[in-house]
């Protein structure tokens, strides 16, 4: 069953992927293995496809490096829940097709290591007998996410959603 990896407030993209491990420093194949190298060195080895990342406030602040969320995607992360997001990180998640949920009370309710199931389309998170309803992403993002990512949407339609 997917597990929750819970992090605190103000987790920046240097935390998610330190600059010295950028793909152009260590190679395209290796960079995801350095996700959270400073903060939680065991993360990249132990994370499983479908696992859920949970952040506090201002998730992903700092550098615009898309390879930080890209490392998470390559490790199989499909959804993030946070109290709030820094804007570039939020765009990058959507562009890569990782669903960014925003839900303060759900973040507070979840603990690191919790086993959960998440229905991405409906925004329903289940932990044991408990059921949490997450607010689905706005229509512009949902349209993009239905094609996979914004990149996939543009490739297919030759325009941005709603344009």
């Amino acid at each position, binding site marked *: 069953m997917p597990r929750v990896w819970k992090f605190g407030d*103000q987790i*920046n993209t*240097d*935390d998610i992927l*330190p*600059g*010295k491990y*950028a*793909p*152009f*420093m*260590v*190679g*395209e194949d290796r960079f995801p293995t350095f996700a959270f190298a*400073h*903060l939680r060195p065991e993360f990249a080895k132990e994370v499983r496809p479908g696992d859920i990342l949970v952040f506090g*406030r*201002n998730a992903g*602040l*700092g*550098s*615009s*490096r*898309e*390879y930080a*969320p*890209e490392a998470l995607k390559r490790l199989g992360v499909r959804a993030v829940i946070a109290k*709030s*997001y*820094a*804007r*570039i990180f939020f*765009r*990058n998640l959507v*562009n*890569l097709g990782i669903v960014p949920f925003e839900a303060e009370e759900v973040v507070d309710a979840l603990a690191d290591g919790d086993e959960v199931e998440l229905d991405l389309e409906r925004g329903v998170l289940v932990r044991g007998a408990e059921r949490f309803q997450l607010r689905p992403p706005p229509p*512009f993002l949902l349209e993009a996410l239905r094609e996979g*990512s*914004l*990149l996939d949407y*543009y*490739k297919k339609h030759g325009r*941005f959603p*709603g*344009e």
Partner: protein
Amino acid sequence: MGQTLAEKILSRKAGREVRAGELVVVEVDQVMVVDSIAGSFFKRLEYLEATPRYPERVSIVIDHVAPAANLEVAKAQKEIREWGRRHGIRVFDVGRGVCHQVLVEEGLAQPGWVVVGSDSHSTTYGAVGAFGTGMGATDIALAAASGRTWLRVPESVKVVFRGQLPPGVTAKDAALEMVRRLTAEGATYMAVEIHLQDGAEAFSRGERMTLANLTVEAGAKAGLVVPSGEVLELYRVPDWLYPDPDATYVQEVEIDLTRLTPRVSVPFFVDNVHEVAEVKGKRVDQVFIGTCTNGRIEDLRAAAEVLKGRKVAPGVRLLVIPASSEVLEEAARDGTLLTLLEAGATIGTPGCGPCMGRHMGVLAPGEVCVSTSNRNFRGRMGAPDAEIYLVSPRVAAASAVAGYLTTPEELEETHA
């Protein structure tokens, strides 16, 4: 109801009157790509089976690891040059300087433009009245392929800087104070609109770049300095490029420059800003003067003024990395460079230097760096427990001489 500067620019671009909260798709005047994500940028264009729609509106800058630090980087940078030649795209190669400084020097950011860059500090272009904003590789590739980008029209926070700075206090101190007041998330998704009044209009283009640069540390999408002073002399500023007096702001912050003191941002958060006096005495291993925040000629001159006739303390490394080749040339011409060298500084290739911990001054475990850069996150410049203190070039220079964090004024007293 009046419009903010952000609403004015995006309305002009959208061809209709838009308000905060609306989603718009707008033409982009310049797409800036840095070396560290160029590979991702190429791959995304390849996936789209697209090439830049307007080649003259795309610039690639080799600055984040310049010159190449290892074989991977060397291969990536070779690909940039070849790709640039193949598609007729402008490439600023090793040594030309930090992307934001280079684009401004080259006139590739103009008042009223929309500039998107693959670097979060693209807010810097707001110094000249351009809507500059940072994005990831996918957004940047889409902007290059389509010539457009989507934006949510941001709400604006108004920051008024009033009066003239006291001697020894700089635009960096003003910028750090702004981040402290707004906090690291106080302007998330918003534009910070900077109004310079009652003498603050005297801020140079470079000083405005320092202010606009640091707005992203409060989460801002753009940091727009209302054009005045030197910017009106250097640029043709369109008459519509002003916020209406009755524009609506989410928040208004006033900063009285006449009472400001030297500031320092203490690890590991940029908004953890204190008076230098509170932290002084902190032992220093490395001092770094440079970056898109403070690597301009006025910054090097300010450091040289403090360092003149003095020596860097034993055991301290002083790295000075000019923000661009123009800055380096000017420093060579006016004697600044010699003053720095005589004091014991090491001069690096114009570019980002060790700011993001990849080369040219990576920090060892437990080391302390006093830096004029913009981020002091954990592990940013090397070891996870190394500490970065963000200050002005004057304070950085004084700390290099003392071997501990201090101001030039304190230095005078101690060594008098």
